[in-house]
Every structure is written in C-alpha cells, then in structure tokens.
C-alpha cells in the first residue's frame, strides 16, 4: 500500500458566484522512500494540493475525494486527530525561510517544540534532541547555539532550521513547497542535497513542489505536471524527461535557462509560454491549456482524453507529442 494516496481530489472554494474548483479530480500516489515532484506555474494549484494533504485548506474551501496517509482517510478525520498527525507523521517546509520562523523565539525552542508536543519530551531532553537535529542539518552547536534568534541566521541557515524542525519527530511524509525558491543559487544546491540525503537515510516519502524542472530532474523519482488545478502529465522522471508529451510540460522545459556551453547556442532568447494560468473561475471548457497552446486543434475545446504512453507515464492531451521533436 502506498504511503500517500490521493484519489479523485476536488477542492472547491465558495465565491459569491458559486463554487469554483481550484483542484479537479486529482490523483497522486507516493510510496515510502520515493520522491514525487509536483511541477507547474504559480497559481496552478500545487500549494493548494499540499495544504489539502495537511488539512489546512482555507475556511472557504471544501474538499471531496480521498486522501489516504498510510491507509487513513485524512479528509474524514476531525481536527484534533489531524493535529496529532501534523508534525508527527507528515511535515512541511516552506518557500520563505525568512518568515516561516517565529522572530521572537530562539531557534532551539522552535525545533524542540514539536518534540515536546508530539513525543512528550521534557524540556531538557527536547533541547538535547534539538541540538542533535541542528547538528544533523549542518548547524553545529559550536557556531549555532540553540539560543540564536532567526534574524541572526542567513536564509539558507534558516531553511536548515526549518528542515530540522520538520524532521524532529521522524515523519513519514515530507512536503517541501518550493524549498529553494527564495535562496541563492549556490545555497539551493546545498539545501537540496540535504533534503535528498535525509529522504535517503530516513526512508521518507518526499512531495516536492516546485516550478523548477531542473530541481525535479535532480531530486524526483516521479513527476506530475499540474496545470490549472489538474495533472496534465505524470510518470517516472526518467520516462518523462526522455520524452515530454504534453505541450505545457515541453513549454516549461523549454523555458529553463541554459548555461553557456550546455549545447545550446548562447545569445538566444529565453523561451516563454505566452499568456498565464487562467483564473479557476474563468477556466475554458475542454483543455485549460488550449488558449496558450501552440499546437491546439479544434477538438481541444472538448475534454481532453488521457493517453497512456508507457507504464505509469500518461498524458491528458488530445494530440500529445504533436510538434515535438522525435525521441
């Protein structure tokens, strides 16, 4: 049985004009010890998926479907039971390490808190564990005592503190929501290496949310590409990167900057996908990507079919690979 199983998840937000679906019949599966990259532009529902798993959707949102963590249906659980799971079995780290730490509390206390809450450790024990955890994420006590305040640390160091806090109770599932977006490029690699190392050694399942395909290529075993509240292409990372089928996935791939000498000619303009993700309330009928798609067909105004390309690699497109270079 998979650790995390999302089946037919739909999240609707009540608006004065009626409910608007921001996630539509989402299916995701994540096994222990594996990592799943969830890719897409801002506003396509990646973070909403994470919040739905954590049970922290905004009050106006309603979720249908099932989200199972180790066989337990999270959507059916009452708030108190979810509180016991959050931080204990599933943890999350955020995009902005500058604001995700409480500015008036020393870092040691912030790491120790969930140990005290979930494992019932005494203050001294929890602090000793916190010191070990910080050491583990590359913040040795000699230079980074527990009494430091967040403002005394750099962005990368703060992200390490948050990772230590997330890992404190030995969760089964780690959700990383754009964990490196706010960091310098050189620090990004270090933080990603740290996460990869922890996933490896602790046997965690990692749900990595990002818009950076480079990060996904490096970190993820499986990839799901989201567009406007739906998964448009999913599969094992190797298969997907060998041949991207959905025009949106290819567009994202083409929009990655290439380093000089990487085979691409320097001086070419960075490719973009014209337009932007539609507001969920004004999503077009049929394929939501059609208005921005360079290869659209008249049939795209209807619900796109799902085509299975190889085992576990599928795409939601009327004419996948149309206009794509041959593999």
């Amino acid at each position, binding site marked *: 049985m998979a650790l995390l199983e999302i089946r037919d998840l739909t999240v609707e937000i009540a608006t004065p004009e009626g409910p608007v679906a921001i996630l539509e019949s989402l299916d995701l599966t994540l096994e222990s010890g594996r990592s799943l990259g969830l890719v897409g532009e801002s506003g396509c529902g990646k973070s909403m998926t994470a919040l739905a798993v954590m049970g922290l959707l905004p009050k106006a949102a309603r979720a249908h479907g099932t989200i199972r963590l180790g066989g337990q249906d999270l959507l059916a659980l009452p708030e108190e039971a979810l509180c016991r799971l959050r931080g204990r079995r599933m943890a999350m780290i*955020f995009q902005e390490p500058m*604001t995700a730490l409480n500015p008036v509390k020393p870092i040691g206390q912030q790491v120790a808190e969930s140990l005290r*809450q979930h494992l019932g450790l005494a203050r001294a024990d929890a602090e000793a564990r916190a010191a070990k955890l910080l050491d583990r994420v590359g913040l040795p006590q000699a230079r980074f005592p*527990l*009494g430091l305040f967040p403002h005394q640390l750099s962005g990368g160091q703060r992200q390490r503190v948050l990772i230590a806090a997330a890992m404190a109770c030995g969760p089964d599932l780690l959700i990383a929501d754009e964990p490196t977006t706010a960091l310098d490029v050189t620090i990004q690699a270090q933080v990603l290496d740290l996460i990869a190392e922890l996933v490896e050694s602790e046997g965690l399942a990692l749900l990595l949310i990002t818009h950076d395909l480079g990060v996904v290529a490096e970190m993820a075993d499986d990839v799901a590409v989201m567009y406007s509240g739906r998964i448009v292409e999913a599969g094992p990372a190797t298969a997907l990167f060998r041949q991207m089928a959905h025009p949106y996935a290819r567009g994202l791939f083409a929009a990655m900057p290439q380093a000089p000498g990487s085979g691409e000619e320097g001086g070419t303009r960075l490719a973009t996908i014209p337009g932007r993700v539609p507001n969920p309330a004004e999503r077009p009928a049929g394929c939501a990507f059609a208005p921005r798609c360079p290869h659209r067909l008249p049939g795209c105004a209807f619900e796109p079919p799902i085509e299975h390309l190889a085992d576990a690699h599928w795409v939601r497109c009327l004419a996948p690979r149309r206009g794509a270079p041959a593999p």
Partner: protein
Amino acid sequence: MAIKVGLAAALAESGKSRAFVIGGAISGFFLSIALLALVWTPHSVFQMAIREKLQGPSWSHLLGTDHFGRDLLSMLMVGASNSIGVAVVAVAVGLAFGVPLGALAAAKRGWIDEVVMRFNDFAFAFPALLSAVMITAVFGPGGVNSIIAIGIFNIPVFARVTRGGALSLWQREYVLAARVAGKGTTRITIEHILPNIASLLIVQGTIQFALGILAEAGLSYLGLGTQPPLPSWGKMLAEAQTMLFLAPQLAILPGLAIVLSVLGLNLLGDGLRDLLDPRLRRAR
C-alpha cells in the same frame, strides 16, 4: 541554559536604553515608596494636629503639614500606594479579560469576532471617566468601586490591541508552519501570538497604568474614589485648591507626584518595548 541567551542579552543591554533607565528609576522610586507606605510612614496620616497646620518643611515634617496638621510626606506616600494599587488591579482586570477576548476574536473570526468587537465598540462609545463617574455614582463611591469602574474600561482597550496584533500575526507564515507542526489554535495563541504581541501589551499596559493613576486621581478629586480619611493624590489636590494662594505646596506636591509617576511609567513602557523586541534590538 543556552536558550536563556535572549533574555540575558535583553537585560545586559538594558543599561543602554536611557528611557528604560530613567523611567525605571522613577517608577521604581514610586513603587518602593508605595510599598514602604504599607508598613511605615513618618507620621500617622489619620492623626490631626491643628496646632501644627500649614507648616513649612522642617526636620519633623520634611514636606510640611496640611490644613489639619497632617504630615504631607506621609500623605503622599499613602497616596502613592493607593494610586498604584488601584492602577495595578485595573490593568490586571483589563489584561485578564481583554487579552483572552481579543485573542479569541482573532483566532475564531466569524460571529465570535463580531460579538466581541461590537461589545467593545459599545464600551468605547462612552467616555471612560464619565462612565466611571456613573458607576461609582450608582454603586456608591469608594476604592473598590473605582477599581471596578477603571478596570472595566481597560477591557476593550486590551481586547482591541490584542485582536489587532493577533490578526496580522495569524497571516504570518510561521503560524502556518506551527499549524503544519500540529499545533491547535490555543497552543498557537499561547506559543506564537502572545509572545509576539507582548511588547504591544507591555506598552499599552504602562499607558493604561498611567491612565489608571490619572483616573483614580480624577475620581478622588471628585470625591468618588478613595474616601476620607484615607488620603489620595486626587483628594489632596481637591482640598488644596481652596488654599492655592495660602499654601501652594499643598497642590504642587501631589500634582508633581501624579505628573512624575505618569511620565516615569511612559518612559518605562517605551524602554521596555525597545528591549523586548529582538528586531528593534538588532536595529540599534
């Protein structure tokens, strides 16, 4: 313990804040006088000696005597303990009811928020001192009733400050991070919201403390607060005004006590705010 470093650093830096030092010294001076007055005064404030009335400063009466021959220094000391006692309890009442109400409103939102805030508006709609006069007029003048009257009008002040501060904090990412770590509303309020608005509450607390002293003096001046024969600063002012040209020190001294204590408290509040906020500490 390593975690105490923050507090220790704040105390170590306290000497650098001039507002904290001066305000703390003045407030500490009045507080120690008030405490001393509970156990000892140079003379009894209830003992009249008409033959010694309206004397100037002397070795037996350091600040002179009033029109009943009572020792002015002793009266000011007892007045200090009166004023501070009333203000402390009034602020405590405001904190004890206002902070939970404001925190609840911010955490729950919805109709609970509406009810709490409309109740607040209702209480705010009446001028506080006027309502205090009304309450003491209805329930009878006296120390306890003036404490209740002043305290009740501290509740909406603290509720509003707490709610305002808490509302903006609930939007912060570290509160989301705390929820992700499995903390419930109550726990987040205690562990994350309250420590972050502590500086707001301390500043508001010292302002309300100073206003409490003023309100007590005002009520006593009107004869609705502390009742004779117990002396209070407000009552001393009221009695002195008929003799303003005969013995101006009778009005000047309690007036000075009120001004200095209020000033000291305000300075202390500012100093404390600077010291307790790690972000401001970094900026210096």
